[in-house]
């Protein structure tokens, strides 16, 4: 009696096993007809989130003046010390930013930067922001030190924007 039950159970198992194989085949076949998930980089690019932390920008006010006031808070906040700021006084003849001082030199060593965004948080005038660009590869170490000219947004007052590379400015 027990043997008979055992053999019946085993028969059912064979049927169930074959059915399980068929289920597996059906599952994989249904995947064929679903759309591909691959993003064909570099022709296609996935979208960045609003808060994505990529390449840095130095922003301007709408009248073309630089936001940066050379306070060096970003350099102080930077955990890896990749930001160099050397400030200079603003004069009435040579006004770069609205405050007392402006950044004469502003350099970021992109090889050191860990893209933590602390500089963005530390900035009292929202001058430095991290943009969406992430393709920052280059061929020599020297080219990874981004100077102020590279970081600054184009001046809306001037029709000749100071820009290096293909990067689009942040909105």
């Amino acid at each position, binding site marked *: 009696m027990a043997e008979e039950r055992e053999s019946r159970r085993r028969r059912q198992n064979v049927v169930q096993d074959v059915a399980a*194989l068929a289920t*597996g*085949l059906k*599952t*994989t*076949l249904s*995947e*064929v007809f*679903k*759309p*591909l*998930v*691959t993003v*064909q980089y570099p022709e296609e690019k996935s979208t960045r989130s609003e808060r994505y932390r990529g390449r840095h920008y130095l922003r301007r006010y709408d009248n073309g003046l630089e936001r940066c006031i050379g306070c060096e808070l970003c350099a102080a906040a930077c955990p890896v010390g990749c930001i160099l700021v050397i400030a200079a006084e603003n004069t009435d003849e040579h006004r770069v930013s609205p405050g007392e001082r402006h950044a004469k030199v502003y350099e970021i060593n992109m090889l050191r930067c860990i893209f933590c965004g602390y500089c963005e948080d530390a900035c009292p005038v929202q001058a430095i922001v991290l943009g969406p660009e992430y393709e920052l590869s280059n061929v020599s170490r020297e080219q990874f030190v981004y100077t102020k000219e590279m970081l600054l947004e184009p001046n809306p007052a001037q029709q000749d924007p100071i820009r290096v590379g293909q990067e689009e400015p942040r909105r």
Partner: protein
Amino acid sequence: MIRLTPPDPGGLYTNAVGHWIIVVAAMVAVIFVILTAAAYTVWFERVGLGRFQRRPGPNRVGPFGLMQLAADGVKLATKESFAPRGVDPVLYVLAPAIMVVAAFLAWSVIPIGLSSGFTYWIANLNIGILLVFAVSSMNAYAILLGGWSSNNKYSLLGGLRAAAQLISYEMALGLSLVPVFMIAGSLRLSDIASYSVHWGFYSGPVPLILLAPLSFVIYLVSAVAETNRTPFDLPEAEQELVGGYLTEYSGLKFVCFYLGEYVNMITVSALASLLFFAGASPAVGPFAWLAFFVKIVFFLFLYIWLRATFPRLRYDQLMRLGWKVMLPLALLNVVVTAVVLVAVQ
């Protein structure tokens, strides 16, 4: 029933010179066609597997990635021919040669239908299917010798596994086809493919899968095991044996093994089509070769489908399936078919 002379299209084969010309030309053509077919089988598998995993597969080299295999071939051919220390110098080179030669040899007897009708290209042996089995068994030598001569324990284990697996499944594979021979009454592949019946009001060809369905199932499973494909790919189980018998092979020697595997895939697909689905028989219609091609592609797709679906069997499961399920089923199939045949006649 067994004819020793082949059918003679246009008197070419009875002419001594014409015979050799046609045979040599056919050999060259078959090698070229099969090489190309193997390359595109690899492409088909990579794209097919990609689709199963919702990715595009190779699509960079040429349109739809069709030139990917040319690029891969150039890369592999220009690689350094490296052999590790302590390999057996003769067997290490001989193993991939056996693999690729055996794979191509099977195609000498496989009839390829042309638009003019059912004909053969190189040889129309009255024991064609036996020759296919004989040369496909040589894969076991290639894999075993390759594993043994590589002076590497992973290669050796892979080679031993392969030998045990091939021997186990060859029994079931051979026996699964015995009912087919009994029904068709011939071992000649063209006879089996063009098998036809006279059943009362119906008189004409019939695909043998209708008469021997169990044979087809056993053949299909055993053929997957014979070609070392997933889910029976234990000889080259990369997670546990690095690359199995392939571990120490690179460059063109690796190509030989790889090519052999894919040609074997095409061979068993072609055999399944010939033995069970009437192959390229003229009864299929004027586009017999196209029907043959479609059937082969279908079986190749089945292979890829299986690979995309099933995980690898454990070694004891493999042996149990081979000896305790496939072999008894195949024997039972032979006996039942014999009884039915005698009862019918």
